């Protein structure tokens, strides 16, 4: 602790009680050594940028991030596993750049996860090829999951838009006895809708509601 506290707040009884309650589980920086990375560690800048992206997305950070992944891609051009890690990082960077604050929240988790796996691969001495490939496989799976989440999100949004445009200008349905169908009148156009088309519409709506429920269940799972 930095010793600038107000002594008038001393309370030995409480101190004793708290010492009992929280004993043997305290960590302080005094007994911790700080391990520094080796001087030639190539990911220092990228690490700083990955962590910065988690907090704030600015043009400067994004540009630096892309530049550093490109530099590292050149640096590791002969290592296929590391290159794949870097490709994922670059793809995530592009996605974040395009979507900024609207990016899927999981993409930042995956960005960190991919980076720290790469960090492990580069920093761990004597790491075997199979171990690095295993780490890469996990991150590829994570990336694929994210892509799926993003496309589901897009699908849901476009359906919401469709739904909105449908409800915005709802046509009036008028029964016409002369023909075996419904006449749909709207301000801008007139459509003839058969019974079959109406049934198809109903089925589409059912499917939409079903897919919405699936999406909601996924969201709930993520919340857990």
């Amino acid at each position, binding site marked *: 602790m930095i010793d600038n506290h107000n002594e008038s707040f001393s309370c030995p*009884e409480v101190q004793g*009680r708290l010492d009992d309650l929280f004993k043997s589980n305290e960590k302080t920086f005094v007994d911790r050594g700080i391990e520094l990375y080796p001087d030639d560690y190539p990911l220092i800048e990228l690490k700083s940028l990955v962590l910065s992206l988690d907090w704030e997305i600015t043009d400067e950070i994004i540009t630096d991030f892309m530049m550093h992944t490109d530099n590292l891609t050149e640096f590791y051009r002969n290592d296929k596993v590391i290159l794949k890690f870097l490709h994922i990082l670059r793809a995530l960077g592009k996605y974040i750049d395009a979507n900024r604050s609207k990016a899927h929240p999981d993409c930042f988790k995956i960005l960190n996860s991919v980076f720290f796996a790469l960090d492990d691969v580069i920093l761990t001495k004597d790491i075997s090829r199979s171990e690095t490939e295993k780490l890469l496989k996990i991150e590829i799976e994570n990336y694929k999951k994210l892509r799926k989440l993003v496309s589901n999100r897009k699908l849901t949004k476009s359906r919401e838009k469709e739904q909105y445009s449908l409800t915005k200008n709802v046509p009036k349905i008028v029964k016409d006895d002369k023909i075996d169908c419904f006449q749909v009148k709207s301000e801008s156009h007139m459509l003839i809708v058969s019974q079959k088309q109406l049934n198809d519409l109903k089925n589409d709506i059912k499917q939409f509601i079903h897919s919405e429920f699936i999406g909601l269940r996924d969201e709930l799972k993520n919340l857990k």
Partner: protein
Amino acid sequence: MAFVNLKKKEIQAKIVYYGPGRGGKTTNIEYIYKNFEDRIDSKMVAIKTQGDRTLFFDFFPFNIGRINGYKIKIQLYTVPGQVKYNATRRVVLNGADGVVFVADALAVQRKANIISLKNLQENLKHYQKNIFKVPFVFQYNKMDLLKKEVPILPLEALTGDLNEQLNRPSFVASALEGTNVVATLKKIIIMTVASIKMSLQ
């Protein structure tokens, strides 16, 4: 103001963890909960959004036992750190007896720390409380990132930006690793209980 039941000899104190978004407020409470769950017979309640952000608040009540004949109950709360949730922050801050300000030591968060502290001062003022008089502890979190060579604000900068005028106890910490999490909590509990004791006399 603390809830004091003289008949039952019970004191309930509310401690709020305040600070910028993603600064580690929830991580602090989670660390306490996970590591002392067996000793603290209580459950933590957290409401989060999809991206693990605190949407409303976290709540973790526990007893520290009897002191001078009074049963002391502590309630830990966090506020959502994101700027847009100020109404929630203000509600959670209502009736706070002690505050832990979890500052983010990441260099990119310098401005966010200052804005959040200013926001705390304004929200306390809303409840006619003076930031200079409320039991208050600073925690400079994420100091573990130093060993990863991530740009971190030097202690002098953190102190200069946040604590120069207030001059409150402060801890360098890593909520993720648990470093100084307990020390911070102990300090704020001691200060809060002492302050309640003084107000009762």
